[in-house]
């Protein structure tokens, strides 16, 4: 279970998170939605300890994380932008990350799933954006951890890789993983997520199931409900 309690964060004078209270239920897929700049990435980074909250607590598996780093062995985090040292080869990068985390890995399964075997000997600086994202998926998801945090995971992926990633996420859900995804693609949310956290200007506007969120609007389509909330939010 991951829990955020009364979380506040300012960047200079800009308030990015304000009194955020969130509970990620075990074994479910939760999507964090919200317009650009609503605090999605900051929320994720606070869980990982990359951003330090001004006030409030983050609990991962009942442990308050303030200043700890060991708990991150339970988290696989796929970041939005993938850039690696240009002169290392793909296989060297995989070995390097494995070297940092002495845990069970399943890189071969992921390498085959995303057809990366021909690229293993190539230097990371020579790869295309899509292939780099596949490498990113392999190095971050190979640890089979309890929690998966995916920040815009589909960026740059071709249709086949996208399909495989979605199947992979579903399989992980079946295996009991707790998964957090941020995305702007509502189709992906409809296909995968069960719960939604909707952020608006750093506050939690809504937290609940997809069905509950749809009931908030006039339409029965999630995309239209979100558009409705955003328009009303701007008018309000």
């Amino acid at each position, binding site marked *: 279970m991951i829990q955020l309690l009364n979380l506040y964060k300012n960047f200079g004078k800009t308030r990015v998170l304000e009194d955020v209270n969130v509970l990620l239920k075990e074994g479910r897929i939760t999507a964090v939605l919200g317009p650009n700049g609503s605090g999605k990435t900051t929320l994720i*980074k606070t869980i990982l300890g990359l951003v330090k909250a001004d006030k409030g607590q983050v609990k991962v598996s009942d442990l308050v994380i303030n200043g700890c*780093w060991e708990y*991150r062995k339970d988290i696989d985090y796929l*970041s939005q932008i993938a*850039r690696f*040292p240009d002169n*290392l080869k793909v296989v060297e990068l995989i070995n390097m990350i494995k*070297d*940092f985390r002495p845990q069970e890995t399943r890189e071969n399964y992921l390498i085959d799933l995303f057809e990366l075997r021909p690229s293993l000997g190539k230097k990371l600086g020579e790869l295309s954006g899509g292939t780099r994202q596949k490498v990113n998926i392999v190095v971050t998801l190979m640890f089979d951890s309890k929690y998966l945090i995916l920040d815009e995971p589909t960026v740059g992926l071709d249709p086949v890789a996208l399909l495989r990633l979605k199947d992979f996420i579903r399989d992980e859900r079946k295996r009991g993983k707790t998964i957090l995804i941020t995305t702007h693609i509502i189709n992906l949310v409809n296909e995968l997520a069960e719960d939604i956290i909707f952020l608006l200007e750093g506050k939690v506007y809504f937290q609940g199931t997809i069905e509950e969120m749809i009931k908030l609007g006039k339409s029965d389509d999630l995309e239209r409900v979100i558009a409705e909330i955003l328009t009303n939010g701007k008018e309000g």
Partner: protein
Amino acid sequence: MLRILKYSFFDLTRSWWNLVYFAFFLLVTFSLLYLSSDLSNAMISLMNIITILIPLVGTLFGVMHYYNSKEFTELLLAQPIKRKDIFLGQYLGLAVSLSAGFIVGLCVPFFMYGIFHSELFSQFIYLLATGILLTFTFSSISFLIALNNNNKMKGFALALVFWLFMAIVYDGLFLLLLVQFDEYPLEKFALGVSLFNPIDLSRVIIMLKLDIAALLGYTGAVFKLFFGSYTGVILSFSMLFVWSVAPILVTLKVASKKDF
């Protein structure tokens, strides 16, 4: 930390820029040694190149490396690794790979020239040591500047201004002060001021070791008396060491509180 250092070192030593850096020192040292009739003269020319170029390259590589590996640093920060180890490993990877390029580029020509049998061998070691300490100093200061500035252009500009100040402006101001107050006994003051600029410090150490301090007149004599003495050598090297270690300690402190 050692693991991060290892991979950072592998990545950087394979980079094209590091090869150019190594090739430059190789070529320049060979040319100076074999084209110049006097070993001492060749060393003075090398000293001038080392005290200007090493700080500049350290500064540029430091900021470039920090900004280029920013996203990768975030990936590392999300792993179960201490922050301190990540930044220390990346910095040492950079400083060690730059130093390696410099050391090999300098040593190969000098060894072929037969520096082991020369009476200037200890001076060669001083040249090498100051070059390494300057690499560590300027790459850590530029790392610190980049860490404090999310804006790349601002980071680059500040780092270059720092280099310009230490390499050129500092001496100008120093000279201006000496001229302005030339009626006062300024030798001790001049000595003190030199300690606070790593580039000046390196230059003075090498010049005194090459026995050309006489060129500096009375001040040179005071410098020789101080830097030539056992305490002088210990103090000047300690100061250079402080210059190379202090910025990275501050960097680690800043990094531990920073949001990424």
